[in-house]
């Protein structure tokens, strides 16, 4: 019994056929899961965790992000324009981002103070990535559906965390 010490002969049993089948299935499951995620870049490289990131200077980045916001807040961002967003306790550098449907936009995302979370919800979409101090995340997004999307902060950043919001309007 599993609670009492006993000699090896008493517990060292051959695996039954059913136990062997189950080992094979368990290994197969792990291999299927691992193979799927490893081969995903070949299947669809456009739904993938972005891998481009670089260190940045917070002061310089803040200026770029504020500059971007002062030009484009609430106005349509033309294609081929890089989007710069800075997160900070307790707001995003831009409050309303207007984008065109079906266009590739390059986003830059970084935090000026603590860790924040960039979560987009709305129209059946849920995406979350981390916003780090000192590390700028660069990624491409293309919204296939027009509509209103909300960005919330999803990493606890202090008492005002819950009110940290931004709107993305995607227009046809």
């Amino acid at each position: 019994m599993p609670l009492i010490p006993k000699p090896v002969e008493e517990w060292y049993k051959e695996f039954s056929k059913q136990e062997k089948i189950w080992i094979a299935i368990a290994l197969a499951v792990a291999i299927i899961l691992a193979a799927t995620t490893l081969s995903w870049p070949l299947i669809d490289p456009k739904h993938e965790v972005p891998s481009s990131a670089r260190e940045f200077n917070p002061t310089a980045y803040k200026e770029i992000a504020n500059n971007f916001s002062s030009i484009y807040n609430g106005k349509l961002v033309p294609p081929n324009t890089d989007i710069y967003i800075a997160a900070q306790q307790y707001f995003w550098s831009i409050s309303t981002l207007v984008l065109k449907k079906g266009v590739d936009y390059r986003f830059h995302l970084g935090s000026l103070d603590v860790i924040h979370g960039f979560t987009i919800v709305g129209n059946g979409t849920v995406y979350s990535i981390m916003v780090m101090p000192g590390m700028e995340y660069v990624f491409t997004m293309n919204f296939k559906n027009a509509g209103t999307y909300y960005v919330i902060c999803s990493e606890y950043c202090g008492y005002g965390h819950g009110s940290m919001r931004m709107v993305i309007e995607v227009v046809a």
Partner: protein
Amino acid sequence: MSDYEVSSFGGLKIYRTTKHLIIANLILALISISIGGIAAIFVASGRSAVPSLINFLGINNINYYQWLTFHGMNMLIFWILWAEIAILYFASSVLLNYPIYGYRIAWFAFAAMLYGQITVEYSILTGNADVLFTAYPPLAANDLFYIGYAIFVFGAGIAVVLFFLTIYYAKINEAYKGSLPLVTWGAAIAGIIALTVVFQGALTLIYTLAWRLGLTSMNVMAYRWFFWGLGHDAQYVNVVATIAVLYALLAIGTGLTAAKFINERYAKVAFALAALFVIPGIGHHILVDPGFSTVLKQASGSVGSHFLSVPTLLHAFALTGALEATIRASGHTSLFGWLRRIPWTNPAIAATLFALISMGIGGITAQPQTTLQPNLNYHNTLWVPGHFHLMVAGGTTLAFMAFIYYALPILTSRRLYSTKLAKLQIFLFGIGIIILGLVMTILGINGDPRRDFINPSDLLPAWSLTPLILLGAGLAIAGGVLFILNVAVTIFTGKKGGNLFDGMITSFEVKNEASISKRGALAICIIVVAILLTVYFLSYWRLETMPELY
């Protein structure tokens, strides 16, 4: 060396020093789960977004995070570790008939942990540590929080070392013959993982303290990596300890009949695999962090974690198979006929099955969130706490509760105060946590963020499901209260003598041991795996419906 009593259960020697240590650890575990439970009322009410309740309890955006920190630290660190150390002492000293090696040092470890816990509780209660369980810098608590946390972890580390020394000295002094019992083997694997956790935890906390004192700059990414060496690998300690406890529960609850049908070699191999695969698991916390390479994310987060599911799957079959064979041996031959004969009124069996169901669901929801690409849709949503409540509350906590119902009478020769309450408690807690986990999972699919105190339904109508959190949490809290009362009354006023496990053991008459099959359990396990794969591939399909992101 004659300072022991012989338990009427299996003639185990209960050393007085061991008994006192285990009971002291259990009392602290009870206090911690009580505090965590009170915090749970505020966290669940706050997150339910029912305005009248929030006003009544005076919850706001400041104290909500304080309660959340309080809940996380007490449940995930204090309750679990106190209980685990009691279990480690039980699995070494009691099962191997040998007193705890260096019990004075064990009391020192106890004092260190207690001091650490009081310091952390004080920091949180005075509002100096509203940093949540994760305490990600550059957010910072006061210095005392990190000092207390480090001392607690240090004390726990000493206790784990004493557990290994007890096994070693029991062996060389020939207190036992043959191999380690399966439960002690499982506890030892949990202990090995725990040592790596203590090391990484100490590293993280000392580094953070050095940063607080201005001795070093803070690398946020390094913190996140090493913190999860503490925060997540500790959960593998829990999973392994839970499974060791489930083997014990299954054996005791069936009057040792199931022990005949547990393939201990199979279980031991699975335990060993868990230790082998555990370290890579850190990576699934940094899957959407900038700065870490995709290779590291895949190796450590996704692929590493997928192989970690192999040992858990093996245990799932070993446990359900042993239960099936036990019932089948008493004369049931159809594929699923034995399911109708499951003794649900037996606390050990009910707890084992609720824990397996809860961890089964949690194991399924674990897959999308640990996989690089689908995790984009679940990261930092309520899906994640949905998963870990199913694992740590529905699995570990429930198993530990049931284990305490059986270990306490063995240890003290006192009968449990109320068997009926124990049975009711397991149903309330098991069902409550499963409801809570499922509600959080569904909210998570719709992107409702974790770690957030907002009125959720104002953004998305799908988030208006939050009041259902109260249903699951309410049942679980009611179950928790019954557990605490029952165990506390047993410790202080339990009746001695008589039948130790009156109404807590179900006997099975073994009629035909030779032709035992476990095909029903195999079929159930295959169905669960089919659901797991379906959920996994559905999550990829769902990713495809979303905007492009790369």
